[in-house]
């Protein structure tokens, strides 16, 4: 079948989304990042409070600004992917 792979990917995404909704509605979760959690594990493993010895040069002043930079990152990537696939498809009829 022509679109088998597309259907498989769609199914994977739906299962993932379904599992997320299920987990969200059962029990309390923080949905924090794994890097933050790793910091806690370090303290747990060594038995002391770990003090980072370096600070980031620049830290986004708020969550909104941080998400701006993350969006910018995906927008740049998506633009490049779209541009070059468009370039490759140029001259081919869409419906063939």
């Amino acid at each position: 079948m022509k679109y088998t792979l597309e259907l498989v990917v769609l199914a994977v995404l739906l299962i993932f989304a379904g599992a997320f909704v299920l987990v969200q509605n059962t029990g309390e979760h923080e949905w924090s990042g794994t890097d933050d959690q790793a910091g806690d594990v370090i303290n747990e493993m060594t038995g002391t409070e770990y003090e980072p010895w370096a600070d980031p040069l620049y830290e986004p002043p708020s969550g909104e600004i941080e998400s701006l930079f993350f969006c910018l990152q995906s927008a740049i990537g998506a633009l490049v992917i779209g541009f070059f696939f468009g370039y490759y498809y140029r001259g081919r009829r869409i419906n063939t």
Partner: protein
Amino acid sequence: MHIMEGFLPPAWCLFWLLVSAPFVIYGMYQLRILMREKREALPLLAVAGAFVFVLSSLKLPSVSGSCSHPTGTGLGAILFGPFITAILGLIVLLYQAIFLAHGGLTTLGANLFSMGIAGPLLAYAIYRGGQKVGLNTYLTVFLAAALADLFTYVVTAAQLALAFPAEVGGFVTSFVAFAAVYAVTQVPLAIIEGAVIALTFKYIIDVRAEILVKLGVLSDGVAARLQRVQA
């Protein structure tokens, strides 16, 4: 996600930097050859880099109740090999360390090793192995990309466990604890990443199978057969 700024002792930062550096240097050498001799493949290189950009910016919730992001390095590793992919990973890690305080400059070497080198090396090995034994091409791409993603975070857990062995039980106890945070969260994300990259691979075969043949990613026969199936 990456190891945060200042979260590895200086000696380990230096160690991983020294381990990663040769891969980047050899990658630059390979990149120069690619730019000179296979210029028609450069748009694909841009796409592979852009994939790392997009996928590593998406922090996704996982079934474990925490968030992480995929790596997107599998595509680059399959198309251009692990060394050039190390450079793509370096660009993304620098962007995130400088603008986002995500990862860090001191932990750059360690993060580059897990995301830009260890993962892509595994992806490359799986893809080549799968092609050799004649496994379905898309299944091979899926496995290569998904396991590269997962392996990246297994390596991250190992890096942290080496730097912070548990008081009781040492490296192994520590590794299990870090892997429980990093690798378990990553499993569903790795599956999604593998599926998305396999689909992208299909579209690349659709539009420019001849470049894949020239890069040595597909043999002539396999490329012709896949294009016929999709037409």
